[in-house]
C-alpha cells in the first residue's frame, strides 16, 4: 500500500525499534561490552577514530557498537558528535621523531640507528584460521618477550637522506594557523596541509585503490618505504592564556614516509621526494596509501604532468571522504518521484515526437 511508502512517524518509530532489536541480536548471546570492542577489535576502533577525525577510543567503541559493526556508519556517528565540540586552539606539530616507538621498520636500509622493530604485526604470520581462537575461555597468551636494552634514539630515515642533500627539503611551513578542513570548505588549488588533512580522514579503501593505481603505472611512482613507525606521541598545546606549551597527553599514531625518485626540473637537481602519511591509531595500510597519494598529488608543485586519477587533486580530495560519499550514494534511497515524474513526462513527449516523425514520411509515401 502506498501509505507505507510515504512512511510517516509511525513507520519511522517501528523501523527504529526493529533496528534496536537487530542491533542486540539474539538476547541469549551475551551483550558486547565497550571494553571488549576497544580491546579486542582495536584496529576497527583505530579506523573509526581516523576516519571519524576524533581521537577517543571509548567513543569510537560506542560508535561501533551502535553501528552494528558498520565502520563507515561508526565514523559518521563520531563525526556528528565531534562537530558539536568546541575547538580551543591548534596543537603544536606532533614530534614523531620523539615517538615512544612500538614498531619501526625501514625498507630502504638493512639496519639503521635504532634498529628495525617489528612490533605487533600481521606481516609474517601465516594466514591460517586459528581454530583454537574459536574455543572461548582459553587463558590469555603469555607476555611477549621484551628486548633487554630497550630501544635507543631513532633518527628519521628521511633526515639521514636529507643530510646528504638527496632528499628534497620541504618548504618551510607558514606561520599562520594551519587551515582547518572541518571549519572551512576545501578550496582549489589546495595547499599541502589541507590535502594531508583531507587524506588523513579519507576512506582507507578509496586511498588504498588510488595508491595501488600509482604502483601500476597510473601516476609513475617508484616508491620505497623509507620508514614506517607506530607509537605514542605527546600532544602539546600552547594556550593563549598561558603563553607557554603544555603537554595534554599522548596519542597513538602510525606514520609513513615514502621515498620517491624525482627527475629534477628547472633549478631543482634530481633528488628524492617524499610522500607523507599519518593516521590516528594503528593503521598502516591507511598511512602507506596516504603517503603514495600525497606524493602523487605533488605533481603540480613539482612540475610533473598530471595524467593519472591519483594526481588529480579535485578528483581525489572531493571523493575520498566516505561520510560524504556514503551520504550522497545512499540518498538515492530517498523518494525521487517528483523528478522521476518529470522524466516520465519528458520521455513520453520525446517519444511522441519521434513516433510522429516516423509516421509522417510513411504517410507521404502512401500518397
Amino acid at each position, binding site marked *: *500500500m*502506498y*501509505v507505507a511508502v*510515504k*512512511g*510517516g*512517524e*509511525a*513507520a*519511522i518509530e517501528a523501523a527504529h525499534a526493529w533496528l534496536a532489536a537487530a542491533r542486540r541480536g539474539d538476547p541469549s548471546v551475551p551483550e558486547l561490552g565497550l571494553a571488549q570492542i576497544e580491546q579486542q577489535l582495536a584496529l576497527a576502533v583505530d579506523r573509526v577514530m581516523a576516519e571519524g577525525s576524533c581521537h577517543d577510543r571509548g567513543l569510537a567503541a560506542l560508535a561501533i557498537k551502535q553501528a552494528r559493526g558498520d565502520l563507515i556508519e561508526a565514523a*559518521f556517528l563520531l*563525526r*556528528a558528535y*565531534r*562537530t*558539536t565540540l*568546541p575547538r580551543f586552539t591548534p596543537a603544536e606539530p606532533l614530534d614523531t621523531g620523539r615517538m615512544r616507538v612500538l614498531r619501526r621498520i625501514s625498507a630502504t636500509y638493512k639496519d639503521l640507528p635504532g634498529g628495525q622493530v617489528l612490533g605487533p604485526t600481521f606481516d609474517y604470520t601465516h594466514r591460517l584460521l586459528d581454530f583454537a581462537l574459536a574455543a572461548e575461555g582459553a587463558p590469555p597468551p603469555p607476555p611477549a618477550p621484551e628486548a633487554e636494552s630497550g630501544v635507543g634514539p631513532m633518527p628519521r630515515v628521511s633526515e639521514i637522506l636529507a643530510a646528504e642533500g638527496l632528499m628534497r627539503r620541504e618548504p618551510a611551513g607558514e606561520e599562520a594557523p594551519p587551515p582547518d578542513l*572541518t*571549519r*572551512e*570548505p*576545501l*578550496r*582549489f*588549488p589546495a595547499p599541502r596541509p589541507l590535502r594531508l588533512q583531507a587524506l588523513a580522514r579519507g576512506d582507507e579503501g578509496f586511498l588504498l585503490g588510488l595508491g595501488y593505481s600509482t604502483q601500476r603505472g597510473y601516476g609513475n611512482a617508484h616508491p620505497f618505504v623509507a620508514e614506517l613507525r607506530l607509537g605514542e606521541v605527546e600532544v602539546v598545546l600552547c594556550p593563549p592564556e598561558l603563553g607557554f606549551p603544555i603537554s595534554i597527553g599522548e596519542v597513538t599514531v602510525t606514520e609513513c614516509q615514502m621515498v620517491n625518485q624525482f627527475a629534477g626540473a628547472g633549478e631543482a637537481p634530481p633528488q628524492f621526494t617524499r610522500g607523507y602519511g599519518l593516521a590516528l591509531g594503528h593503521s598502516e595500510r591507511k598511512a602507506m596509501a596516504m603517503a603514495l597519494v600525497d606524493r602523487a598529488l605533488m605533481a603540480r608543485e613539482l612540475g610533473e604532468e598530471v595524467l593519472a586519477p591519483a594526481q588529480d587533486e*579535485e578528483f581525489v580530495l*572531493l571523493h575520498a571522504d566516505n*561520510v*560524504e560519499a*556514503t*551520504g*550522497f*550514494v*545512499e*540518498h*538515492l534511497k*530517498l*523518494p*525521487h*518521484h*517528483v*523528478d522521476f*515524474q*518529470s*522524466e*516520465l*513526462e*519528458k520521455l513520453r*513527449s*520525446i517519444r511522441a*515526437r*519521434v513516433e510522429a516523425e516516423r509516421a509522417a514520411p510513411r504517410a507521404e509515401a502512401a500518397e
Partner: protein
Amino acid sequence: MRDPVRSPEGAGAPGAEHRRREPEGRDPHYNFAYLDEATKRMIRRAILKAIAIPGHQIPFGAREMPLPYGWGTGGIQVTASILGPSDVLKVIDQGADDTTNAVSIRRFFARTAGVATTTRTAEATVIQTRHRIPERPLREDQILVFQVPMPEPLFRLEPRLAETRRLHALADYSLAQVKLYEDIAQQGESASSYNHPVLVNGRYLMSPSPIPGFDNPKLDRNPALLLFGAGREKKIYAVPPYTPVKSLDFDDHPFAPMRAPHPCALCGSTTHYLDEIVTDDRGGRMFVCSDTDACAEAAGRAGAAR
C-alpha cells in the same frame, strides 16, 4: 473515508490537526536549532553574501550534521541559522509533508529548536523543501529553503570546480547553451526535465535544485526569499525577493514546463503538479497532487462548493 494515498499525519481532511508544538518542547542538551551560535553567525554571513550576489555560489564551512549528506544537511544548516523561536516551520519532500524525510527533519527542529510546525503553506514563515516549490504563491514574509545536492549547474559539462568558477566569473555559459542546442537538434526539445538551469538577474547561471521544470517559472520574481543550501558541496546561494529568474532556453524554443495531462484524482486540480501512482500490475494509474497541502485546500474548496 480514509484517504488511500495519504498517511494520517499528512495534510488530511480540512480541519484536521495541522499545526502543533512538540509537547515535550526543546531538547535542552543542544543549542537552539542544534548549531552553536558562532556557526550560525558564519552561515548567516554566507547567506547575506549570497543575497547580495543573486545566484552566485558562496562557499561556507558546512558542519557535519547528525543526518547524512544527501538527506538535506545544507538546507538544515540554512534553516537552523535563520530560525527564531517564533517561527512556524513547514518541511516538505517531493511536495508532501508526510514523506519520511520531511517527517524526520521536522522532528529534528521540533526537538532541537522547539518551534511550532505546520503543514499549511499559508501559515509557515520558513519552509524547507526538497524537489518542489509549493503551489500556493509565497509571500514577502516567507522564506523558502531548498535542499541542494549539486549546486554547480555546469557539473555534468565540466566537473572541475576551479574551471567552473572561472566560467562563472566570465559569465561563459556556452557549454550549457551548446548542450541545450544539441538536445533540441537531436530530439526536438530540451532533455532536462528537472533541475533545468536558470539565469538569475541576467548574470549567474544557477541550479534551481532538482525541482521539476514545472516549478521553474515560480522562481521568477517570487515575493519570498529563496535560499539554497548544499551541505556536502559546502555552498550557499540565494534568489532575493522579486529577482528575475529565467530558465535557460532559446527565443525560437522557449522553455516549456511540463505536467502530466490529467486532473488530480483527489481534488480535481488541473493546475497542480501531479504524482503518478501505479495502482495495479495491469497498467492502472492514478494521478494525485504532489503538494499535499494544496491538494487538501483544493479538496476543501471543492467540497464547500458542493
